[in-house]
């Protein structure tokens, strides 16, 4: 081996042992880091409870796929690949970084298990890792600093631009990579010069380049560089460690935990307070999130974990139409507040009402709970539960827009948001032609195997009632023995829950659950994805629930239903995934399979489809809300369908139908485009 002096034995000016510095740096670095982390944990300790230790197996699986596997990263290809390179590099180099710290105290230290050939393999691996990380940092730096992709921009109302921090951190990482490689290259160059011992170095790595570059340097220079690069690495490393919890790079530390503790059950809403049953709700002093500490510790961890990548807001339909909501800033604003109220030193400040202090009422009401943000977040940050919790707080304080007060009151009095009479709930079955051909069983009087849960919009909206009749025709044709609840049915309450009116939702749920269990049905079918979601995910103790598209797909496969060739083979169809069928419940293939069973039907896909589907504008109470916006979500969606070359938009949700029908008119595409419910298309093609 060479006779270059390592940092453990080196003495500055021949007297001061460098090992003292190598000892002080980690002690100070780790000590400071521990202190910062303790301060950062302070708000989490005061937060609301959250149960996240269930389903350990599934959590480990998520950790492997989302955290270690970075599965969501390539959804944005360039940024994603760059991140994967840096992330993988960090994992590989973490071992090297730790052993470097020890090398400062003991020359030539080798991590246990890294002697012999594993050490050789690891060395090659880490040299390439460092090289690729540096390349990724340079590309990322150019991308952030020069090209500035739009999704990183910070609108003025949300504070200052974050580019400087991003580029600074890329600089730190680059410094780590370069100093680590110089440390090694200087030693190798020294050895080569002294003994002619040409150690193997992985070609084209940083170390390889530096070694060539340093081949002409003097012994003194190499010795100096060796020690300098060591301490540059050491200082940068501990500076970076302590810098992480101060900003968006906190995710380097928190991501592991954030993904492990992520929300597992899609389509479900968290209880008002973990550990408090529905029966005990009346005893709670306050509902929902009003102040910072009302968030659960996991939701606070989410705020810490946000990497500010802007993917959530890039996918958010509310943000796209200019509503005053950008999910990214729900996190960033809360994190800024946490940093402000829980400073690194000194007293902790009392938090004010969040809606007023950092959020606005319209911001919180703007969310359609479509879930696009959560589907996208590489760190598995959740938003829907936070929106619901904030709304629960606003409802508790009486802060509900007038446009929503009327339907909520109607739901309380009549069980539907329109304020229509309960006894008219089954009037859709009284349409002349339909009544002549079909009789719908009222499960209050007759028994049946299956319940068709109609829900409010399909029961009462003149145009949407068609969906009820089509669903009934399909079920009849498929030989399903079914009936309805009639006036006993109340609104499913999917949006009542999601708009924060918990007690009203509990009432609706109780009434529906009782009515359904009284009928003794063995299964439930609905054509409304919002009802489907509520009954399947929010309610408990009900028979299995299926969406009509699942029934149709199954009956086509079994041969119980058969479809004619396409009646309009010249038209181009596109299927729009309703949020509550697709993203929240994973039903993507059944409706497509049913459409494809129509021979000669031309079907295209929109760029944003399946789990990246774009919300039509929202259902349930969202139909009543009057948002500030530049355009309608539906209009953007209709344009996407037109771009895909479609002229018929097929959807499987009454709210999507309403929104898209309206949007076609607003977009001035009447005559060019049409919206069609899944059930109507199927009924038209029934043999």
């Amino acid at each position, binding site marked *: 081996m060479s006779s270059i002096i390592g940092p453990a034995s080196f003495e500055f000016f021949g007297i001061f042992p460098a090992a003292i510095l190598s000892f002080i740096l980690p002690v100070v670095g780790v000590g400071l880091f521990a202190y910062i982390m303790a301060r950062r944990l302070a708000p989490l300790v005061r937060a609301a409870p959250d149960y996240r230790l269930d389903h350990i197996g599934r959590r480990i699986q998520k950790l492997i796929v989302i955290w270690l596997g970075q599965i969501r990263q390539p959804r944005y290809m360039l940024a994603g690949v760059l991140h994967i390179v840096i992330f993988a590099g960090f994992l590989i180099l973490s071992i090297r970084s730790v052993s470097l710290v020890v090398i400062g105290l003991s020359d030539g230290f080798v991590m246990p298990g890294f002697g012999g050939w594993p050490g050789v393999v690891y060395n090659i691996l880490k040299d390439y890792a460092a090289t690729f990380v540096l390349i990724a940092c340079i590309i990322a730096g150019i991308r952030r600093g020069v090209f500035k992709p739009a999704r990183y921009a910070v609108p003025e109302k949300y504070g200052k631009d974050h580019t400087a921090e991003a580029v600074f951190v890329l600089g730190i990482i680059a410094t780590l990579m370069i100093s680590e490689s110089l440390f090694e290259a200087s030693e190798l160059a020294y050895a080569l010069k002294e003994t002619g011992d040409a150690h193997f170095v992985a070609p084209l790595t940083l170390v390889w380049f530096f070694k060539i570059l340093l081949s002409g340097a003097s012994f003194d220079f190499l010795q100096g560089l060796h020690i300098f690069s060591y301490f540059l690495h050491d200082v940068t490393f501990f500076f970076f460690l302590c810098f992480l919890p101060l900003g968006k790079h906190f995710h380097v530390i928190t991501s592991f935990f954030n993904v492990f503790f992520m929300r597992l059950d899609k389509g479900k809403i968290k209880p008002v307070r973990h550990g408090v049953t529905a029966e005990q709700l009346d005893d709670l002093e306050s509902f929902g999130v009003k102040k910072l500490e009302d968030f659960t510790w996991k939701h606070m961890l989410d705020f810490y974990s946000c990497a500010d990548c802007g993917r959530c807001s890039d996918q958010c339909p509310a943000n796209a139409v200019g509503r005053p909501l950008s999910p990214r800033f729900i996190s960033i604003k809360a994190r800024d507040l946490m940093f402000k109220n829980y400073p690194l030193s000194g007293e902790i400040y009392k938090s004010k009402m969040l809606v007023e202090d950092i959020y606005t009422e319209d911001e919180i009401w703007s969310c359609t709970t479509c879930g696009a943000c959560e589907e996208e977040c590489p760190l598995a940050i959740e938003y829907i539960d936070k929106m619901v919790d904030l709304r629960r707080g606003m*409802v508790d304080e009486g*802060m509900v827009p007038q446009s929503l*007060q*009327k339907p909520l009151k*109607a739901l309380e009095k009549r069980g539907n948001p329109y304020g229509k009479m309960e006894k008219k709930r089954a009037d859709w079955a009284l349409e002349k032609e339909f009544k002549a051909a079909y009789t719908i069983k009222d499960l209050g009087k007759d028994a049946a195997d299956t319940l068709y849960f109609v829900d409010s919009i399909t029961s009462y909206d003149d145009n949407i009632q068609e969906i009820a009749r089509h669903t009934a025709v399909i079920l009849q044709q498929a030989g399903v023995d079914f009936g309805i609840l009639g006036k006993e049915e109340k609104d499913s309450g999917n949006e009542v829950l999601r708009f924060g009116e918990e007690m*009203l939702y509990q009432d609706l749920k109780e009434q529906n659950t009782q009515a359904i269990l009284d009928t003794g049905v063995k299964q439930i079918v609905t054509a409304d994805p919002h009802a489907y979601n509520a009954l399947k995910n929010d309610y408990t103790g009900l028979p299995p629930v299926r969406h009509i598209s699942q029934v149709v797909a199954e009956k086509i496969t079994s041969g119980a239903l058969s479809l004619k060739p396409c009646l309009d083979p010249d038209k181009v169809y596109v299927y729009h995934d309703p949020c509550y069928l697709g993203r929240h419940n994973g039903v993507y293939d059944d409706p497509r399979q049913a459409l494809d069973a129509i021979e000669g039907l031309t079907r295209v896909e929109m760029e944003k489809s399946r789990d990246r589907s774009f919300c039509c504008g929202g259902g349930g109470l969202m139909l009543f809300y009057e948002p500030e916006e530049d355009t309608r979500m539906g209009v953007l969606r209709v344009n996407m369908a037109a771009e895909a070359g479609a002229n018929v938009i097929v959807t499987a949700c009454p709210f999507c139908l309403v929104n898209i029908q309206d949007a076609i008119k607003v977009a001035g595409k009447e005559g060019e485009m049409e919206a069609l419910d899944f059930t109507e298309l199927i009924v038209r093609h029934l043999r």
Partner: protein
Amino acid sequence: MEILVCVKRVPDTAENEFELNSAGNDLDRDDLVYSVNEWDNYAVEEAIQIVDNVGGSVTVVTVGDDESEEVLRREMAMGANNGVLLSDDAFEGSDGKGIAAILKAEIEKGRYDLILTGAQADEGAGQVGGMLAAMLDYPYASLVNKIEAVDDATIKVGREIEGGNQEMNEIQLPCVLSIQTGINEPRYVGIRGIRKVASVDIPVKGAGDLGIDAATVGDAGAKTKRVDYFVPDLGEGAEMLEGSTDEIIEKLIEKLKAKGGL
């Protein structure tokens, strides 16, 4: 400031489809849902906001039967501090003057700086506020859409005048104001809020408690009586279009086209 707000339980216009009863002298009330009169709700919100700013308390009062208690609870869930139910068999069938007389008796039992009523209720007469002010010999402003507290003795009230003009008046306390909708944005009252005040005691006062001669109120004392209630016959040139919304629209367009309107 001590504020009293007079409220009424009425059939909810948003959540009902009105039909006449078989006798033809009233609505068919079997299937109706009730709520607090919309104007009154604005008045209560305004009272709460005033008290939030200058202190004091808000009392809500209604003349009605046992079921009227629910509207008092709803307004108390909103933030009113006290509720009083004025209920007596003798009050049944009161006309506007009778109601005003009953309210006056209750108001004289307390010390209120400001008395608010809704501008009108379900029957659209809009008379109780004015009569009440006259009986109490208090100043009165109707259709108020703005209130600013000035000092202990006066407030400023705004009224919207036809044509979109706004007028501001100084008025001396105590006074009676009838409140127009739109003066504020009433807060939401959820089931949870109502449950929180479910067990709060609401005193019920009858004619005896108020010292009212039963013969001067109710049916007995009413000097106006409703004798008929009907949907007017179709007049000359009027036609009701029937069918679903789409059919109605189609027919309307046809008619407009036929008459050269389109």
